[in-house]
């Protein structure tokens, strides 16, 4: 029987980055009604911008801020320029438009940075402590802390701020909210900025913890979407639980023979399982 403890500890940090992205996806869906497949690509852009600034001799601290800001800006621009023109289109069309946006960003990153081997480093990588036989860097601890913090902050923001209230109103009934004076475009833009910020933080952390590769980071959206599916694109606590479960399960399956090499299928299994579970009532009614 393999010792699963180290894998549990290492999986938590990856899970936290899934949570960050998943929360960003849910917030955007609740406010603007868009399933954002570009969440991973926007995060990858943040990571590449940070890396480039550090490569040019810039201060690392500012480079991450600039990277996250670039992600928020790109997300804001999409939300302000393209998304409003599709606002009354089919939800699938809006989702596919974000997929196109992801592929454009992926192509742009491939053109500018290519796939040369590189690594994004944070000063917190060198600070570490031992937990259950695994060395945990501060970056991992921060990733986990940020995952919890960001989720709590977003939940409080939605519950108590005026913009949060307007977002909930938009999610409930877009047309009625507009008639009541909610500035739809402005609230949508806020949702895109929050989504971009979360994508940026998640991208920078994933690039440091795992791999600085446009392709890999762009498709890191898959576990985040699976986490959002787990939360039905509505519930933030369920999205957090889904993200954590996916990340930890992926890590825990590592030492299991035969299944281990195929553990990247976990997000798909979770998404399919969650959808089947959600549909159980419908099946019951039709019986």
């Amino acid at each position, binding site marked *: 029987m393999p010792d699963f403890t180290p894998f549990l500890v290492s999986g938590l940090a990856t899970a936290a980055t899934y949570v960050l992205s998943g929360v960003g996806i849910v917030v955007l869906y609740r406010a603007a009604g868009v399933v954002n497949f570009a969440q991973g690509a926007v995060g990858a852009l943040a990571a590449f911008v940070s890396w480039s600034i550090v490569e040019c001799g810039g201060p690392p601290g500012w480079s991450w801020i600039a990277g996250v800001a670039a992600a928020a800006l790109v997300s804001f621009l999409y939300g302000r320029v393209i998304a409003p023109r599709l606002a009354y289109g089919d939800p699938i069309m809006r989702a596919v438009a974000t997929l196109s946006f992801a592929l454009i960003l992926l192509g742009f990153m491939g053109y500018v940075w290519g*796939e040369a081997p590189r690594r994004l480093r944070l000063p917190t990588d060198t600070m570490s402590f031992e937990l259950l036989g695994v060395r945990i860097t501060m970056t991992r601890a921060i990733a986990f802390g940020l995952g919890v913090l960001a989720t709590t902050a977003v939940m409080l923001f939605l519950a108590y701020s005026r913009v949060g209230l307007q977002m909930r109103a938009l999610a409930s009934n877009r047309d009625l909210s507009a008639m009541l004076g909610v500035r739809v475009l402005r609230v949508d833009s806020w949702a895109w900025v929050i989504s971009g910020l979360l994508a940026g933080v998640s991208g920078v952390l994933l690039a440091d913890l795992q*791999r600085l590769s446009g392709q890999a980071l762009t498709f890191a959206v898959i576990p985040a979407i699976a986490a959002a599916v787990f939360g039905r694109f509505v519930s933030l606590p369920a999205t957090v639980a889904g993200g954590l479960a996916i990340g930890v399960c992926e890590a825990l399956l590592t030492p299991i023979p035969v299944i281990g090499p195929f553990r990247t299928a976990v997000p798909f299994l979770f998404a399919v399982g969650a959808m089947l579970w959600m549909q159980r009532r419908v099946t019951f009614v039709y019986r």
Partner: protein
Amino acid sequence: MTLRNTILGIFMAALLGCAGCTAHAADAKCGANTGKAANGEPIVIGGIVSVTGPDNFSSSGLAATAYFKCLNANGGVNGRPIKYQLEDDGWNPEQSSQVAAKLIRDQKAVALVGNMSFVDCGANQGIYEKEGIMVIAGVGVPRDCFFQKNYAPTNAGPRVSNTKAVMDVAQTYPGKIKRVVCIAPNIPNLGEWSCSGAVAWIKKQGGDGKIITFDPGSLDATSVVLEAMAFKPDVISVGTPKGLAVPIFAAAEEQGLADKVHFTGPASLYNPDFPRAIGKYWDGKVTVDMELKAADAGTPDMQNWLAVMDKYGQASDPRDTFSQAGYLAARVTAETLLKMDAAKIDRKSVTQGLAEHQAVRKRHVVFALVRRRRSSSQRQSRGPGVVRQGRQARGKAGVRRVGRS
């Protein structure tokens, strides 16, 4: 600054500039080396590489492109230029089959040269044999590449390279290497196979070995490293392309493993960007196999390869083992074509000519021997040696050879 100082400064800069370029100073020589551009009817040659996907795996094709450009600028094939068409298969077998059909059936390529792909050999074996086209690949990766009738890679493959790398560490630390872990992507006909030689060898020495395969799309390298460490290895061979190896080394650094375990890897890690990517922590702590000469060996062939890359390639093209392999594949092809009647060059004659080329025949002989002596990994070992990877970052002069030569 006085005029004297300015002149002295310019003189010193010129001197340093010349000193820096001495290694590449040789003029690029290709084909008949006439210095005149070829302008006859083009000869179409194709190439398949993996640019997009989990890693950019194309340096062999880029080197072949540079060599054919050089050839075309120097008389081509008795006046006929090579039209070299390089296609990306995106690590996708279906896309690989599509581009192969496009090159062979639509473009009527007479040969494929400089191929470098994880999926090409498996996906296109049928069409290569059916259409009677010869592939002088730069780099063969999966097992299929080394057991095909019309496929001759210039490298010995990841199985031999991994085995050599592990053997070198064992020889460097006699009696201390008993347990080996080999990490590879879970690609059919590649992952397990590429590690099987190293594991078989260590078992024959009385030790034990474990193969860990992982999904190249997976982001969690720490779990892979933790799984490797659970085996309590003395050596970990990271048998992946360079892009996939970086996060594994990062995860190993995070766990502080450089002083606990010896790290090694096959020729795919012999890349000038790699030491910089994995960082100073690994300086002098990773041994990497190389299949051809060291990039800074200074031999006429190595100098010509670098000169061709500098003059006809892009500055961003890698100068790694696989680039050498692509250059070699293109050169072998050019040598063959130059001996033929330029007016009668077609696929049949080129396939026959390449099959009779001494280098290609030797490759087939080598692979025939490999097939017969598969159980003895040591006999498969070939190539000039192993370099300690960390030094590359500081300049070519820093490359230190610690293995056989």
